[in-house]
């Protein structure tokens, strides 16, 4: 018996909608060729939210074929028209903010009011920002040689494969789709098998506002099958991936099949440094925001905190107090909750394992350090916000990405020591520095190996500003004009105006 192509859903907040379950290919929802499906689990209850069709290699192939065919015509659509379509996406997200936010919360474990709806705002901002770029993609005219008209055109790659994670399903989709489409590409986007539902709902919007068939294709599926097929596909011109470093490496290798362009946003273990002259109250608040938001499931979470020894104890006391008071845990539709459940049992188990490791390694538990089994929360994947103190550089909880609401706090004496500690992991995604001395902050920012540095804030990202990592955190940048340039390639055209042999 095959799964239905759509099913009705009523959410705890009263929102009712029809959830598509097919693969969105060529502006239609279709079953997977082999009939393969996957279940999406509710992180608060462990129950099945729904069954959706899962793409395998043959489905990826079909999607890529349609995308390639669509590209022939999509190439001719002007930037002005692409911008208009992208703006309509933003308009629709705005109209349906509450519903889309609710679906996102329901499938990902984000708390709706404190988290998910703000992700929708970010999607809107992202689509509007890139919509504005669509008619402004300019090449250059290089004027050094009077005998030549030399110019570049910034062409789209063509068919872009995009693989997104489960921690910000819709926001990650917006970060990928908006620049790719603005630049004139067509896309085949695979969602995470843990969170396929919200983007399938949103897929209809692309059809409704007028994107031609084949330009936007959304498939649910597993990394090992659908993801691998996309990354290695011989007719995909570029692959963009956000996820773990280990999977990022596999994608980079698979991409070698046809030398497709690769951009990767991978893991991080971002340091947050608090100098003696920091505004401690603000440092406490941002340090909490930087790791306890989104249940710590943020690639750029500042999951290591280094505090100057003079303010170490004071910081720890205030920090624990602040997290305890402000980061209430609850289910997605509990409007007073800030921290929801982790996205899946696998993640939940992995985090608890790290907490165990931390204790065994000798770190001191200042807050949390266990599963949250209060009342109904015991049914889901809830882990209490956890603060480890007195950590040492060699500890696994200091070097490995935990991806949960678990932070490791250590101390330092000199700025150079802070820099060394900051640079000691394989990652280089984000970093945060708290100090009143801007010139020292600038110096530290230039010395720390990271793609992004926040001075006096943390995880204060913005669609206008490039986002990405160095070292094992990835390659390439998303967002901002830099992110847009990752979806075009320069073709140089030389017109000979008189250079005769």
């Amino acid at each position: 018996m095959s799964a239905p192509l759509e099913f009705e859903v009523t959410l705890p907040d009263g929102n009712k909608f029809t959830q598509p379950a097919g693969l969105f290919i060529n502006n239609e929802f279709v079953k997977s060729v082999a009939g393969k499906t996957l279940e999406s689990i509710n992180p608060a209850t462990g129950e099945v939210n729904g069954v959706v069709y899962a793409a395998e290699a043959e489905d990826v192939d079909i999607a890529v074929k349609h995308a390639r065919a669509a590209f022939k015509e999509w190439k001719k659509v002007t930037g002005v028209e692409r911008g208009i379509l992208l703006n309509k996406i933003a308009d629709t997200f705005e109209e349906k903010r509450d519903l889309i936010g609710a679906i996102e919360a329901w499938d990902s474990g984000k708390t709706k009011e404190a988290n998910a709806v703000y992700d929708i705002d970010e999607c809107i901002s992202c689509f509007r920002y890139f919509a504005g770029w669509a008619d402004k993609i300019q090449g250059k005219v290089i004027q050094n040689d009077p005998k030549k008209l030399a110019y570049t055109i910034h062409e789209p790659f063509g068919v872009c494969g995009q693989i997104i994670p489960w921690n910000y399903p819709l926001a990650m989709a917006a970060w990928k789709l908006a620049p790719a489409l603005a630049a004139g590409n067509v896309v085949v986007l695979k969602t995470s098998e843990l969170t396929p539902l919200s983007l399938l709902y949103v897929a209809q919007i692309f059809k409704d506002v007028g994107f031609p068939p084949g330009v936007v294709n959304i498939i649910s599926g597993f990394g090992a099958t659908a993801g691998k097929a996309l990354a290695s596909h011989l007719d995909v011109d570029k692959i963009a991936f956000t996820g773990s470093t280990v999977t990022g490496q596999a994608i980079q290798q698979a991409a070698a099949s046809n030398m497709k362009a690769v951009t990767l946003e991978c893991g991080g273990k971002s340091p947050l440094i608090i100098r003696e002259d920091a505004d401690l109250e603000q440092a406490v608040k941002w340090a909490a925001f930087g790791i306890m938001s989104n249940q710590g499931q943020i690639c750029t979470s500042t999951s290591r905190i280094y505090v100057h020894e003079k303010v170490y104890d004071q910081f720890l006391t205030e920090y624990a107090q602040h997290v305890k008071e402000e980061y209430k845990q609850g289910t997605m539709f509990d409007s007073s909750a800030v921290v929801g459940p982790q996205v899946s049992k696998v993640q939940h188990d992995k985090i608890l394992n790290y907490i165990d490791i931390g204790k065994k390694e000798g770190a001191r538990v200042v807050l949390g350090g266990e599963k949250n089994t209060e009342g109904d929360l015991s049914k889901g994947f809830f882990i209490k916000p956890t603060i480890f103190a007195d950590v040492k550089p060699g500890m696994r909880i200091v070097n490995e990405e935990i991806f949960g609401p678990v932070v490791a706090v250590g101390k330092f004496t000199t700025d150079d020591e802070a820099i060394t500690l900051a640079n000691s992991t394989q990652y280089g995604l984000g970093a945060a520095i708290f100090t009143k001395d801007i010139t020292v902050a600038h110096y530290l920012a230039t010395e720390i190996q990271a793609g992004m540095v926040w001075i006096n804030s943390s995880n204060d990202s913005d669609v206008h500003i490039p986002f990405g990592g160095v070292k094992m955190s990835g390659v390439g940048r998303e967002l901002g004009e830099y992110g847009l340039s990752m979806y075009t390639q320069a073709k140089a055209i030389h017109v000979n105006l008189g250079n005769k042999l």
Partner: protein
Amino acid sequence: MSLPLSVPIKLPNGKTYQQPTGLFINNEFVQSKSKKTFATISPSTEEEITQVYEAFEEDVDVAVEAANDAFHSSWSQGDPQIRMKVLFKLSELIEEHAETLAYIEALDNGKSLMCSKGDVALTAAYFRSCAGWTDKIKGSVIESGDTHFNYTRREPIGVCGQIIPWNFPLLMASWKLGPVLATGCTTVLKTAESTPLSALYLATLIKEAGVPAGVVNIVSGFGPSAGAAISSHPKIKKVAFTGSTATGRRIMKAAADSNLKKVTLELGGKSPNIVFDDADVKLTIQHLVTGIFYNTGEVCCAGSRIYVQEGIYDTITSEFRKAAESLKIGDPFKEDTFMGAQASQMQLDKILKYIDIGKKEGASVITGGERLGNKGYFVKPTIFGDVREDHQIVKEEIFGPVVTITKFKTVDEVIKLANNSEYGLAAGVHTTDINKAINVSNKINSGTIWVNTYNDFHPMVPFGGYSQSGIGREMGEEALDNYTQVKAVRIALTK
């Protein structure tokens, strides 16, 4: 009894709309302090359409205060995506009101609906393009070694004064207001005294789109009073003007004498339209027609001097004459009318005077050469042949449907002819040899070169003049330079 701030006007499509008549200041329509009004005439019937309030220096003062307060608000200093939303909304509203706007423009300026509809579409498209710029204005970081951290910021200039002409009232308003709204500046915009209506209607849409009070102020009035007040106002930091070169000079002087406010100017032109032997005849004729008869020739970049290579001269001249004579001229509201009326009695008189001068100078009238009818400011499409380079009709801007046509032999010769002008706004090059087109384009001293097309605009392509045709560029990314200034910050780093 004083003039009501809104009057109903019945349009030839049978619909009646509310035309604001006041000065648009602080998002309200108000009477001028003097209560003075002036009439605006329909050029196709010579009848008065309505009176509108007339702004004088005292009214400009009030508007500038409003613009100044608005500049020091979250509109300019806050989230640019708010400005983005407003600009998108404005472009949508213009599209919703497209028919009304097109009719108002044809009524007040005399141009054909064919032309005014095109203007409205370009207006919406330009505001939409500007919306995308709001949050992309950037500075740079300059590496000078580890002793310093250097960066530049692009900041909005502040309160602007803008003076627009009567040939494209609505479109010119958009070219001025678009970048103001995009960059976070504020403005006092004066329309031309012969065409005040469409901008006042646009003001209602500006308010509806969510532009905060004081950001955009629109006043109707005359150059020597309101215009002069703007160009010499001590609190206006930048003035942008489109109009005649003579007035542009006066504005630049006034700007210098008052507070050295920054000046950009879009002035006159006498643009050469060049046809080479290997041009595609049929397509070229269309572009020659567009070049001088579109918008009744009242276009700053009109291709008003045609140069045809001798091998093709007879064919082009004869085909061009046929095309000119087959153009429909008359009632702007008839669907197939190409050319409506000239914009005013003054313009009509000036054009007829130049036609007379041309005849007296010894040029031959290939076609046209006279007024059409005796009601409405209509002029027949006019082509002069047998002209010399020193003729007034070849050197001076006529600003009407009057063109000269001259034979040339070589590429070098025509480049010299093309550049023999104090102007440098645009030029047309018609040839199937792209190498030639590029080489010729490189050598012509004009701000826009059209190859195998003419009067062909796009919101992202910059437009402006060389020499006495102006200063600065409108549209394109370049427009943002007019409304921003660069601040360099160099921080000494002590470690």
